[in-house]
């Protein structure tokens, strides 16, 4: 099994689409004024949107979404609209994947990420 990789440039449209589909309407993801009022630089992407893309890349490396049995990640950095994140999955032994997500400045946005599959 080979690894998989995907580069995603985030947009407010994608963040809005995730908020609608997931039902996570925390205003830090939708309302820039609110986000700034709680000390953020502006709206940020949902951690679960980042993890969803990472899981989709892990599923590709695993040979299908139905084969994923576990995924873990630590949310280490904020992702803002226009950030470009490279999501990658690499084999780390039988049924195991090491996952990474790094932004355009080389900073990891998720750390200690891994997955297992059947």
């Amino acid at each position, binding site marked *: 099994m080979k690894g998989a990789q995907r580069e995603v440039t985030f947009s407010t449209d994608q963040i809005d689409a995730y908020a*609608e589909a*997931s039902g996570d309407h925390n205003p830090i993801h939708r309302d820039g004024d609110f986000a700034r009022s*709680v000390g953020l630089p502006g709206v940020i992407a949902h951690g679960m949107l980042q*993890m*969803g*893309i990472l899981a989709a890349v892990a599923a590709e490396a695993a040979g299908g979404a139905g084969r*994923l049995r576990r*995924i873990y990640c630590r*949310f280490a950095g904020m992702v803002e609209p226009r950030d470009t994140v490279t999501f990658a999955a690499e084999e780390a032994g039988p049924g195991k994947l090491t996952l990474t997500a790094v932004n355009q400045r080389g900073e990891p946005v998720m750390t*200690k990420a891994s997955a297992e599959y059947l």
Partner: protein
Amino acid sequence: MGVEGKTYPAVTSVIDRERVAAFARAIGADPSEGVPPTFAAVYSLGATAPLLFGDPEAAVDFAKLLHADQEFEWDRHPKPGETVTSQGRVISDISRRGMRFLTFETHTTGEDGSSVCRSRALFVIRS
């Protein structure tokens, strides 16, 4: 301490086909591949976390909440149209150096009671 060990009422939800398709498109997954694994953010974590956040005894300040880490473990993935039941529980509630660390676990089962998914979320609440 805090609400450690507190179990919240079980929540039953239907895996909605249209919502699954919209979710798949939002994360760049192929909607024809079935329910994306992290749709568990909706049927498992998302179905139960509002009970924790809305619990006056838990007193979670949502504006200071960070989702610090997340794990999902699946016995199987649910199918569109399926009814699942999820129950959340606070595994630990620790305050340290002015920060509060809440570990919230949700167990999702199918209609026959068989295990579908376990979600473990670590929430950090800044003071």
